[in-house]
């Protein structure tokens, strides 16, 4: 029998939890985590404080390399999987190496959502999902006097507040379609506007972007439907996250918004599982799939997937809806939790 | 000058031997090529005859003493430089040729003679001979072949005949002797000659030719060690066995020379000589051809 090789794509909350559980359950198997990010497992939600200098890079890190050494988990950072051959059980890495797995867990997380109406000028948006994005933004901030934030997701609120605190003028262009993972409602909008205005942001709520033009280095002009031309140094685009499944298209996996898995987080390939933000999980009660976005959920799903991969059945249940006060906004969600 | 030490008195080299020579010898002019030191060899040693022959050759050629350098190895023969008026380097056992070559390379105007015994030149130092020959460096190598280790008092040497009794071959020498002449020819020396210590006049002629030869000259002088060899090379045995080189011998014909070297006879004179370029000439022409100036 060949040695078991658990390969996890994604070095986030889901992937790391799964690796822990797999190692606890099987001390001999090879375990590999592959991530296209260069950095150690870090707290994504702390990025907002990192960009304005509230915390430094070390306090972002969840685990350092010693941990992986001790647990005999091979951590491949900065390596991207570009193709999967599910029949031969091979992963094609971008640097042109083939990696063979016996069991595969997809924890590829989310990527920024880009609404179709903004597609034309998408390269002018700055977003912030990864530490890379955050570092880039942090570098630019000292030269930013004015920033236009477009969107309506929770990240945009967090960031706006931090930017205002840092003395940057923020114009917030509320995009009804961008409310994510929240659904837009009058109550939410009121909450939203109040929270942001209190913090000092200028809010434009019943207008919409028609074009963004780059005038020069860190100089943009945003034209709105009402004919306003707003100039700024950065345009932030925050439209929420969608599952990162681009590289799986055509692999033979069923993909809808995310990777379709059963309640045991298994795809229709026996040895391939998915967990975390990238998974779209079947719920037998609902007879439907649900997508989970959020740190706590990712951890939980990672654990469940690992149990199943080890052969002890475990079922994912849809988390209860909780209500949390988020930056002064009352948020009802089954997804996000307060994490520090 | 510093004080003469008491133990100097025991040193024969320090007691100038000049006055022991007859007026005739002094008048002959060869004393211009003899130092004030008296040789330390045993009375009757063949080396005296060689010394005489060489001093005459140097005199006849009017060699400039200031440019005369004698390099020797170790052995009775190795003492030779001390007895010559000129510059001398009494080096280490077997290494006269490399040292002499080094001197000649940097001072081509010098007359450089290398001298050593058969143990020195064919035993411990045997590895240097083919290479000095190969380079054809313009020095004269005189091998004092007494077929015995003299200085160390009578052990077998590379030219000791098979079966001969010596201190280290008490049951007879189990090894075959080398033939130095044949070796010199086989290695390709541009000048190969031999002679006998008992014929100093003949040696003078050979030495003159050897010194004048442009390139590496190899002269093997058979010489009796009167102290440690009473059976092999003795004056009585050897005086009569030497032959003149046949009239029709072509000195430039290597095959003929090799035939003579192997026919069991001792031939007095030059067996082989050719006039290829010596080391410095080759260096010069390489420089010219590759337009390296100076």
């Amino acid at each position: 029998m060949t040695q078991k090789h658990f390969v996890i794509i994604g070095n986030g909350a889901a992937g790391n939890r799964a690796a822990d559980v797999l190692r606890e359950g099987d001390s001999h198997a090879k375990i590999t985590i592959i991530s296209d990010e260069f950095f150690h497992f870090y707290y994504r939600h702390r990025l907002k404080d990192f960009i304005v200098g509230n915390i430094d890079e070390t306090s972002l890190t969840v685990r350092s390399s010693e941990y992986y050494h001790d647990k005999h988990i091979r951590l491949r950072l900065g390596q991207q999987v570009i193709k999967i051959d599910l029949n031969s059980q091979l992963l094609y890495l971008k640097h042109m190496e083939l990696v063979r797995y016996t069991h595969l867990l997809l924890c590829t997380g989310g990527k920024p959502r880009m609404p179709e109406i903004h597609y034309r000028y998408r390269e002018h948006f700055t977003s912030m999902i990864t530490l890379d994005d955050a570092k880039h933004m942090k570098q630019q901030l000292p030269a930013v006097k004015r920033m236009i934030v477009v969107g309506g997701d929770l990240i945009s609120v967090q960031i706006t507040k931090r930017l205002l605190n840092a003395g940057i003028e923020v114009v917030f262009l509320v995009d009804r379609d961008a409310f994510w993972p929240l659904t837009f409602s009058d109550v939410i909008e009121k909450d939203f506007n109040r929270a942001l205005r209190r913090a000092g942001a200028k809010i434009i709520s019943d207008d919409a972007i028609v074009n963004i033009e780059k005038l020069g280095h860190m100089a943009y002009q945003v034209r709105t439907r009402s004919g306003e031309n707003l100039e700024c140094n950065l345009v932030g685009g925050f439209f929420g996250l969608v599952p990162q499944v681009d590289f799986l298209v055509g692999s033979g996996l069923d993909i809808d918004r995310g990777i379709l898995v059963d309640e045991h987080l298994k795809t229709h390939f026996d040895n391939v599982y998915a967990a975390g933000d990238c998974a779209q999980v079947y719920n037998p009660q609902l007879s439907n799939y649900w997508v989970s976005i959020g740190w706590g959920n990712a951890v939980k799903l990672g654990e469940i997937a690992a149990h199943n991969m080890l052969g002890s059945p475990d079922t994912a249940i849809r988390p209860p809806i909780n209500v949390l006060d988020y930056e002064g906004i009352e948020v009802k969600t089954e997804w996000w939790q307060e994490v520090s | 000058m510093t004080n003469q030490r008491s133990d100097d008195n025991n040193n024969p080299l320090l007691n100038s031997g000049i006055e022991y020579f007859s007026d005739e010898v002094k008048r002959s002019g060869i004393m211009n090529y003899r130092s004030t030191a008296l040789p330390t060899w045993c009375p009757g040693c063949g080396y005296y005859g060689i010394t005489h022959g060489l001093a005459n050759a140097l005199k006849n050629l009017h060699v400039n003493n200031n440019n005369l350098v004698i390099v020797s190895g170790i052995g009775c023969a190795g003492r030779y430089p001390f007895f010559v008026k000129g510059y001398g380097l009494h080096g280490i056992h077997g290494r006269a040729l490399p040292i002499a070559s080094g001197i000649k390379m940097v001072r081509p105007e010098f007359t450089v003679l290398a001298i050593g015994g058969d143990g020195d030149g064919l035993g411990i130092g045997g590895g240097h001979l083919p290479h000095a020959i190969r380079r054809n460096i313009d020095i004269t190598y005189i091998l004092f072949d007494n077929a015995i280790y003299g200085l160390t008092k009578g052990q077998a040497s590379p030219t000791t005949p098979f079966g001969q009794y010596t201190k280290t071959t008490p049951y007879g020498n189990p090894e075959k002797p080398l033939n130095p002449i044949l070796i010199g020819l086989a290695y390709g020396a541009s000048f190969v000659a031999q002679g006998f210590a008992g014929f100093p006049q003949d040696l003078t002629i050979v030495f003159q030719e050897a010194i004048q030869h442009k390139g590496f000259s190899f002269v093997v002088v058979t010489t009796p060690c009167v102290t440690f060899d009473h059976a092999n090379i003795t004056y009585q045995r050897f005086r009569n066995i030497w032959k003149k080189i046949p009239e029709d011998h072509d000195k430039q014909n290597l095959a003929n020379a090799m035939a003579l070297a192997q026919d069991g006879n001792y031939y007095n004179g030059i067996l082989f000589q050719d006039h290829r370029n010596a080391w410095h000439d080759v260096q010069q022409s390489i420089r010219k051809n590759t337009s390296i100036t100076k």
Partner: protein
Amino acid sequence: MIQAADDIVIKICGSAGDGSISAVEILNRAAALMGYHIMNFDAYPAEIRGFGKSVGHTRISRSVLLTTGKYTDCLVALDDVHAITELSTMSKRGVLIYDSKPPQYHQEDQAVAGFIEPGMIGYGIPLRELSTIAVRSSRSRNIVALGVLAALLHLQAEYFETAIRKRFSAKPETVIDNNINAFRLGFDYTLQNVNKYDELDFQHHVYSSNRDSIIMSGNEAAARACLDADLRLYAGYPITPATRIMEILAKELPLKGGFVVQTEDEISAAGHVVGAGFAGARSLTATSGPGICLMSEMINLAVMAEIPSVFIDSQRGGPSTGLPTKTEQSDFNIAAFGGSGDSPRPVLAPTSVPECYLLTRIAFDLAECYQTPVIILMDFFLSNRFEDIDLNQLNSNVFGRFTPQTAPLKDQPYLRFEVTDTGISPRAIPGMENMFHTVTGLEHDERGFPNYGKANHLKMTAKRHKKMETLVRDWQETGTFGPEGQLDVGFISWGSSVGAVMEAISLLNDQNIHSGGFFPRLLSPLQTSHLEVFSRRCKRIIVVEMNYTGQYANYLQVAISKRMERFTRVDAEPISSEDIVNWIIKDES
């Protein structure tokens, strides 16, 4: 360890034939043109033939360099499988440049990028593809990689182009153009496609483009010194790591009217050198351990007969044939004491490439002044490492001035070995009018005649040692390094290890461990008074050298009463400053 963003250790690794070494050569040249200091020590493949690994290893810095650096800050992989074995030397935040488009997929664990440790940063660049665009083959991917390096590390491209032009100056114009094109493709590709994550940064600085420095190895520096010192005869027998000296001189010395002879063995080589020295001409041979063994009898002759002659021993791992391509400092004993009898002779040990030049030049002066063989102890590391050196800035006067004494022409008898206060007898050489003499390896009197009298032997032995005392008096260099006053730790080291010790000293002083050094360049005879003064200043004395027993420490220990500690290594690699610092810190805490 990244000392600073502009002090970077770079390795270019590939199969033999991938051009790693020539790429590093160009990199060095470009860096030197920009006024940086470089130190370069390539790793030789263990096997001569086949497609062994070949690693160009260089360190580029704004400040003067003392070591080649233990950890690699930037590794360029021209061959994945070989490069994987180099990763263990990477610094924690090291940078890897690899080929993102190899001809086919690597099997698992055959791609260097798959081994990038967390913290390291890998940049995948289509090296082969870009090379193919430039020269229609993957041959120039080493040059493409230089373009990547220049763009990534923020080095000025035009200096690379000059260096490339120079490197390929013997080639047709199209080759030069193609390679410059390859360089530019790598450079532009990187600027356009690569987000820089690392901290390595030369900030486009050019310190001085007209510094007169050239890049030389220790062997080249020694050879150059020979040429400048008017060497007349080089005689030698090939042996790693000294052969390069002979090869250079074979080409250059005839241009200056000198001669090079390849002898049948080292005995003969030494014989030629001693012969030429006796004849009054400067002569030298260079060898390694096995050769110095064969030469020791000739060196002894030169001691006894007082013949100026210079011997370079580029040490390698021993004993016997040992480790021909690994460095070690284990020939001190044979250099200082090899041979029979009491045979004192100066032993010099350069600590850097510039000193290989200086001490080789000085060696000829010493040899003539004190009428003695002089041994220069280099080693594989010094022989083969490259440094930028500015010959105009070098000054040998720091070591002292050594002028030979020639005998006045006077009436007979000339006393070649006249006993004087200094031990030095005015020298005559063959060719001089009427100064006849014979020198000998036998014990001799002042005239040079053999003499075995006991009083004479005592007198002449003393005379030969007297010369060494005179040399110690004349030698100006004190060898002390670092702060004055009391020291917590005083280091003594010699030769190629000194750089690492100097680096360690400054690191320790940064951590408030007061330390300094005594680094004699004249290893023997011993400068006892300098050693005593130094040892009185030290709480601890540690002797650092690359041999097992502490050969130099043993030699020094008899001269002072304070006990010396030994930091000795024979791990076939140069000692690193990190090793020394860690050792001390472990002890001190």
